[in-house]
């Protein structure tokens, strides 16, 4: 399974298209026929988009049977790294024997600059994650409000682009470069940082440490529990797969409680943490669970070491 097969998707395999729209009419002009075509072929359809656009599409599709599912992407896909395993794959696995269709709008104007690398990597990794699956994924982009950089990344992550002139191959399609290009050292925190070194003997201390910081930051008890699980998974990965120890750093920004795990490991496979256990399976590596529980996960990984930065939104942020 490689990123960006030159021969294109296998017949009936993955179709991954990006579309640029300037207003509601253009959004509906490209998405509604896609949904209707799916229904005409008897294919289950998922529409995952921000709430306002979801409502527009839903009203225009006007087919409220249970073959079309609607998901608010700002909730289900707030963490871009959550979308592949827990939104797209979850839907695919519910219909293992059928071709399915998905409208997925993962980027919106209110996304922050911090989230953009994760959004671009998410779009790029769709090509590798679902190369063997029977699915058409259609991604609308709001060209009137998104930045030129975001739109350039969209051209580089979708093998096929759709605009008013029709469908054409993207001349700049290069998903591996998008993944690699955003694998950069993470910005240095501007806020005071608390540090804890850990190893097998102190795995439980990692939980106490983040719990104290999360409670001091007034996170909801459910989110504190999520953070305990996420940090424990990453620290255990350091212990088992990355030399036996690592460093945890915790700080607070205006928007997030941030927990960063650094160790000597290397996440050489860009799909690490992007695929959930199959419908009939149990388990899943720690990282895919981490993606499910956090609001944003940023990763910088090289042969010299790996940094994983978890963000949980502060109450009221």
């Amino acid at each position, binding site marked *: 399974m490689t990123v960006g097969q030159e021969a294109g998707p296998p017949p009936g395999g993955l179709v991954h298209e990006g579309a640029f729209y300037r207003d509601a009419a253009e959004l509906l002009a490209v998405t509604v026929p896609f949904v209707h075509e799916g229904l005409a072929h008897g294919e289950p359809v998922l529409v995952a988009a921000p709430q306002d656009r979801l409502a527009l599409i839903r009203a225009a599709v006007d087919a409220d049977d249970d073959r079309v599912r609607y998901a608010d992407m700002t909730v289900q896909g707030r963490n871009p790294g959550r979308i592949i395993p*827990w939104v797209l794959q*979850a839907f695919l*696995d519910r219909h293992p024997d059928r071709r399915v269709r998905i409208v997925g709008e993962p980027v919106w104007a209110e996304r922050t600059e911090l989230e953009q690398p994760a959004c671009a990597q998410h779009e790029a990794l769709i090509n590798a994650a679902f190369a063997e699956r029977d699915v058409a994924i259609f991604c609308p982009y709001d060209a009137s409000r998104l930045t030129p950089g975001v739109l350039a990344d969209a051209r580089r992550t979708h093998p096929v682009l759709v605009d008013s002139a029709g469908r054409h191959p993207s001349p700049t399609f290069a998903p591996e470069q998008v993944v690699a290009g955003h694998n950069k050292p993470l910005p240095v925190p501007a806020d005071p940082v608390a540090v804890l070194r850990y190893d*097998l*003997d102190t*795995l*439980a201390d990692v*939980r106490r440490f983040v719990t104290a910081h999360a409670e001091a930051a007034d996170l909801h008890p*459910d989110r504190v*529990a*999520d953070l*305990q*699980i996420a940090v*424990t*998974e990453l620290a*255990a990965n350091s*212990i*088992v797969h990355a030399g*036996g120890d690592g460093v945890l750093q915790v700080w607070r920004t205006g928007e997030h409680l941030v927990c960063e795990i650094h160790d000597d490991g290397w996440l050489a496979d860009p799909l690490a943490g992007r695929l*959930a*256990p199959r*419908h*009939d399976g*149990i*388990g*899943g590596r*720690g990282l895919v*669970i981490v993606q*499910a529980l956090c609001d944003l996960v940023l990763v910088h990984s090289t042969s010299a070491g790996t940094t994983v930065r978890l963000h949980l939104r502060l109450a009221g942020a």
Partner: protein
Amino acid sequence: MRVTASAVVDQLHLGDHVCWVDDDDSGGGLHAAGRFVAGGLRLGHKVVWFTDAVPPAAVRAHLDGSGVPTQAAVADGQLRIVPAVESYAAGGRFTPDEMIGNLTTEILRARREERPGVRVVGDMGWAVRQGASVADLVRYEAEVNRLFLDGEAAAMCLYDRRLFPTDYLLPATAAHPATVGPNAGRAWAPMLRAYRTRNPHGLRLVGEVDRSNRGAFTAMLDHVAGPGTNQRAAVLDVSELRFADAGAASALARARRNAPSGLRLVGCRPALRRLLDLVDPASPA
């Protein structure tokens, strides 16, 4: 420092199976085990100390020297101090089932003698010298957990970090419900405790499960809900399980799916319920 370090063993009680990992020459393991044994003798427990790094005579001298008179205890059979290799690897070969059988006999004998409990110390350095396989050692440490579920016995296994390669030490320690060493703070308590319940058949779990004690957890699940359970439905009381990681949730999901007569969780906290949904999307919820 020494006093604090060995004081953590005062937190141990019958039912515990704890791994003591040490990596210095200061004799921390000897002090900790000595304190564990002294506490047992005071309570009238039967005590068996399987020695390795320190010979039996020196262990006895250490106890006597720390104000624990051994003469009467040895004379009436309350205390036995024997070389570990002669018990674990009797006949020159380590056979986990045989050792578990011997410990079972020990517990039954103590019950007949109306002792309130049994305390065991096992200095495990012999395992490396005898070339015991990681698989055998880990299977032994995992399966022996069932002997402690009834609260009749407690054990402290001593592992010298310098003797065991990491790929040996990690699964061996994780087969214990709790691991502790000389750097533990005063607030230390065993990470996980499990109590067998009779009606309904099952376990009550108290504490936390993560990568550091996963082997013990899965072995205990297998013991109450696995194929050898005489077709009895099992109930796990997880209301006092304060933390479970994704691996623990996966083990629970797998046990629930494969239990021959069913496995029911009671008292599931919201975090564990969410985690079960994530690791086992097809779960009954």
